[in-house]
């Protein structure tokens, strides 16, 4: 794996470039810039404040001139981890398993060390040599995502490493205020990582999983928000970026339940900001329908639509709600159906897009008993008083129809 040739940033001697309005040097790719105004208004960032902040006080002293004169660092670090950090961490034996050369806890290499996320970052301490320019970040992300298939370590360990190192990538992007089309791709990949982790962490066990899950959701929300800002910054008139509709739809799925407590605005407010094109897009219409079914308690349509139309990412995010809708269905049916007509599990499984054995298991999770009727079919007798919500918050049953989804 040759990652020596990372390319370097455009400036060699000066590490800071003063960016007056409309004059940016962001990356090697001339195709990648877009309208200055939108990018300059791009301020909100995932984790860190730009090196020099433009504040209102400076502005009004500017005798009415409206130049937003902000300097952003242009990184010059040509490897995945700045040299001085790698050396320090080798010395302190602070290397993750993936960074160790032949398992040696105090030796790494430029091919293995990846820059860590640093929470206490003060603007004064940042040097250009510590910051990775865009091409290096792209290589770094590619490398990190390749680790996802690793079978050597349990998933939690892989997730933890990629979680931290991608956060550092976002930090570097933020310091340099990078917001062009290539950055969109990076953020989309990082969102995908968080979504898939969201799913995979559920089948892991251990006491650290729940907080890990929670932190992952938090970063998923943050990364999504940043991604949306970059979409907006790169938008020309009413255009929509290639994957934007799908990634916007994820927000809706995260907020199906108004009291879910996920970071962000309530949906009613969020919809106001969508462009006309987005509102009418296939993906947004799809999730708006799901929202309607969910809010109504319409388990049948909710589940069948997801099974037949959702993308893999949409499915992953919806998993908790699929679980929820299934227990809701069991709850409703147990409550309203005629006691003398037990409900066939086969039928239930068809409505809930589940295997029959899984439905039986679900009923038991909900504290309900099943039995066999005189014809030998498994049934649920209704009006049982022992219904409760399933305790295991993470147990997942397959969704029939999921096989068609591309990963």
């Amino acid at each position: 794996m040759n990652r020596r040739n990372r390319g370097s940033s455009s400036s060699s001697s000066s590490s800071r470039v003063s960016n007056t309005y409309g004059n940016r040097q962001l990356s090697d790719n001339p195709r990648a810039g877009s309208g200055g105004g939108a990018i300059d208004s791009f301020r909100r960032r995932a984790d860190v404040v730009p090196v020099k902040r433009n504040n209102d006080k400076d502005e009004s002293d500017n005798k009415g001139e409206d130049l937003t004169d902000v300097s952003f660092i242009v990184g010059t670090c040509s490897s995945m981890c700045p040299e001085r950090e790698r050396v320090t961490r080798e010395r302190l034996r602070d290397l993750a398993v993936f960074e160790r050369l032949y398992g040696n806890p105090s030796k790494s290499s430029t091919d293995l060390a990846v820059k860590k996320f640093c929470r206490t970052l003060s603007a004064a301490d940042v040097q250009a040599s510590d910051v990775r320019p865009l091409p290096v970040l792209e290589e770094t992300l590619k490398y990190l995502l390749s680790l996802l298939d690793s079978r050597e370590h349990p998933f939690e360990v892989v997730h933890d490493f990629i979680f931290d190192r991608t956060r550092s990538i976002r930090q570097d992007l933020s310091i340099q205020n990078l917001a062009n089309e290539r950055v969109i791709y990076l953020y989309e990949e990082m969102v995908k990582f968080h979504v898939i982790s969201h799913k995979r962490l559920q089948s892991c066990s251990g006491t650290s999983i729940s907080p890990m899950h929670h932190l992952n959701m938090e970063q998923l929300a943050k990364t999504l928000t940043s991604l949306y800002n970059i979409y907006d910054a790169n938008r020309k008139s009413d255009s929509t970026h290639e994957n934007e509709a799908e990634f916007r739809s994820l927000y809706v799925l995260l907020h199906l339940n108004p009291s879910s407590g996920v970071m962000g605005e309530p949906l009613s407010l969020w919809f106001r900001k969508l462009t006309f094109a987005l509102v009418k897009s296939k993906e947004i219409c799809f999730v708006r329908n799901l929202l309607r079914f969910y809010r109504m308690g319409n388990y049948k349509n909710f589940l069948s639509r997801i099974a037949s139309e959702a993308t893999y990412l949409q499915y992953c995010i919806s998993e908790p709600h699929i679980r929820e809708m299934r227990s809701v269905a069991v709850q409703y049916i147990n409550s309203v159906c005629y006691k003398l007509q037990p409900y066939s599990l086969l039928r239930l499984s068809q409505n809930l897009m589940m295997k029959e054995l899984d439905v039986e298991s679900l009923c038991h999770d909900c504290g309900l008993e099943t039995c066999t009727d005189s014809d030998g079919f498994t049934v649920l007798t209704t009006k049982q008083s022992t219904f409760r919500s399933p305790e295991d918050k993470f147990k997942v049953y397959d969704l029939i129809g999921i096989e068609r989804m591309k990963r």
Partner: protein
Amino acid sequence: MAYVSMGEAHRRITEYLNRFCDAVSYQDSSTLCRLLSFSSNSPPLLSLADALNLFQDASGLIRQSDKFSEFGEILAHLFRSLQSYRVGNLVEAYLAFEKFANAFVQEFRNWESAWALEALYVVCYEIRVLAEKADKELTSNGKSPEKLKAAGSLLMKVFGVLAGKGPKRVGALYVTCQLFKTYFKLGTVNLCRSVIRSIETARIFDFEEFPKRDKVTYMYYTGRLEVFNENFPAADTKLSYALQYCNPKRERNIRMILKYLIPVKLSIGVIPKDELLQNYNLHEYTKIVEALRKGDLRLLRHALQEHEDRFLRSGVYLVLEKLELQVYQRLMKKIYIIQKQSDPARAHQLKLEVIAKALRWLEMDMDLDEVECIMTILIYKNLVKGYLAHKSKVVVLSKQDPFPKLNGKPVGS
């Protein structure tokens, strides 16, 4: 611009300066208000602006006199702002007005009594309006609009000045409302939270002390926030308060309140009279109300689609969408009533097949599994009383009150 002589210009400026300083000395708030109200575009202000643009050295004039120079800084910024405003240079006008406002607020702090509160209101109003205009100018020049955001910061500062124990505190609600308007316009509605917390929990404030007009505006905005957050009982309380105490002559304001109150009321089963919708020009709700009355699902869907953009923008779309269950309930009731007329003995049995047929008439094709699902929901959420004999594919209605009214509570609570 009409021809003005230097002498005339000098006269106008001096006259204004005298009026301003006298207003302060004699604590004449209403005069002061008139002197500061740029957006009124009053002839005296416009002609003053012309005079200033001609004279060019108003600061010299101010310095010459002790009476005027006491407010030198305030007046210098004010004049600069007015000059820019007059020639349509709105960004400049805003920047200068911001400086004026800062200086004015400093003076205001030193005045012990609350005599200048009305004038302060004018300053707050003007700064917001000027900021909006300045942002428009910035956007049309391809630059990023950030003056309204700056105005928001200044308004917060003013709020801080008023949030004390003295008589000035009754002004805090007015400033809060200006902040609401600012945040709503900017879309940063979450910023309302901190100022709401101050108003509602700080001990220095007694809500009843505030002027009625401000209370109505406050309840309108906080009511709207509750709609966004889907807290319908709270939204109902606040918006109803605003409606009750709003000046009945202010038809535009009443319409604005109703725009949000109607969906909230609909969701708890309260239907407005047609005259109300007509009188206040709220036609977008006509078909929805009709759909609820008739149990016509197709009409509801159609109405939602027709005004989709409008409803999404005002944030009531999701509220209205939820009415679907009530429309279903109404439809079931109609089927029941029809059956009662033809075959009373068996009217309380709703066959799923019959329901599916009714839905097909409404151009909604559903298979029996879907119909069963809908009926399950209706029964569970107490919109229909009875049980589902699913093998027989029949819903058996309770003999007593099979379609309970919502009675002021949202569905399913």
